[in-house]
């Protein structure tokens, strides 16, 4: 039946077009890597700088920027924390209040809550510094497909820690949204955070 075939083709075209529109309607041009749907929502149970146990629920409703590092880190951690706090400061006023930086130390043997506190306050008072037992930290890093490892200590007891160089960005609902690579520029980061803050407002 040619008529039915013609209709079938028409219906197929409409469906495909609708699918294309449906797919592209949501696309944004992020500067960071879009990780929507690739990772589970934000969840952790760790110790903050005052020694209290905290969970992701405590910061629910804000955009969270999570970064793994250690306070004796020579390069990537200070650079990243500096960039993150500058980016948040450059955001327009209402959005600024909505963004929370979370620094997770993966060096629990050296990084005490006090040491983390003075470290993060050097960059910004608002940064949440967290750590936990190695098991807890392993579980969290596994959840976000990252890891950390320790070098053998030298004669002074110093050692390097390998850790993720990226910042994990979670939206207000706690869904994983963006992965900011270390080389992403400050302006590009501010643009991404502003776009994310404008969502659903």
């Amino acid at each position: 039946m040619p008529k039915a075939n013609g209709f079938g083709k028409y219906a197929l075209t409409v469906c495909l077009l609708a699918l294309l529109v449906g797919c592209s309607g949501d696309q944004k041009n992020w500067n960071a890597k879009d990780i929507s749907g690739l990772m589970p929502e934000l969840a952790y149970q760790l110790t903050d700088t005052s020694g209290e146990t905290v969970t992701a629920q405590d910061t629910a409703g804000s955009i969270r920027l999570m970064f793994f590092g250690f306070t004796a880190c020579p390069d990537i951690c200070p650079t990243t924390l500096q960039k993150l706090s500058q980016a948040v400061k450059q955001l327009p006023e209402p959005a600024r209040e909505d963004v929370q930086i979370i620094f997770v130390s993966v060096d629990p043997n050296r990084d005490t809550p006090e040491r983390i506190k003075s470290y993060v306050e050097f960059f910004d008072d608002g940064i949440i510094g967290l750590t936990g037992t190695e098991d807890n930290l392993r579980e969290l890093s596994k959840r976000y497909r990252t890891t950390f490892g320790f070098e053998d200590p030298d004669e002074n007891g110093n050692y390097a820690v390998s850790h993720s160089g990226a910042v994990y960005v979670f939206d207000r609902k706690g869904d994983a949204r963006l992965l900011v690579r270390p080389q992403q520029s400050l302006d590009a980061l501010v643009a991404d955070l502003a776009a994310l803050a404008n969502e659903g407002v």
Partner: protein
Amino acid sequence: MSAAEYLLPYDFSPLTVLAYVLVLSLYSYGLFRMPEGDRPGSGRIFTFTLGVALCYGVMQTQFDYYSQYMFFVHRGQHLILHHLGPILIALSNPLPVIQFLYRQIPQVVRPFLVPIGWLYRCLQQPALASLLFFGLIYLWLWPPIHFDAMLSRDLYWVMNWSMLLDGLLFWWLIFDPRSPITTNALGYGKRMLCLAVVALPQMILGATIVFSRGMVYDVYEVCGRAWPMPPETDQLLGGLLTWIPPAMMSVFGILIILRRAMWDDVNRASHSTPQEVPQ
């Protein structure tokens, strides 16, 4: 970490464990129940078990942890899943066991297996099988796709399973124990051609990784390495593992096929009646 903990899965996948238990149970059921004359010898049983154990080992022990956070270990994992494990399984010739198990399937169920047969024959077209074999390596090593696969747990499992299944299909096509003279198995010349065809793109890809100056796979940088190792060293080792062992395995495969072809020739010559050569 104790030795026993190294043998426990880093990322426990019930479906994967179930699949391996099923394969080993069916294989041993077949071995015990099948007629004595068809049963493979202990060397072949050992080769089969070793192949299966190697694949299981890289998927469900702490080896998997290092494969997720070190590029060169990841390349080693795929070398086993896509090459070494399936090569051992195919060389162990489990065909009599599979044929015995197939005969145990009730007649009423067999028509439902026909579509699987179609799909199998379609995938085993030599051109398509070769394309799939190196195409999958290129697909999963395409930098944006590789990045996603290492970040998403689901994609990671799809990647490893697709490599294993494709490895089994390809090496089974190459090391099919049936002679092409007496059955419709793929001819020896075509098998050797397939091996040469898949070796070339793998060598090109491996060499490209080895000689690239920048970081091709920055996901290991982004997600942290299992231990502090210079990224260039990790990439270099990974590139070498993509380049040299697969090329060697193709050569090794060609040698085995050549030997089989010569063996078949000798057999054919001795079975046919000698003819007088005209002066």
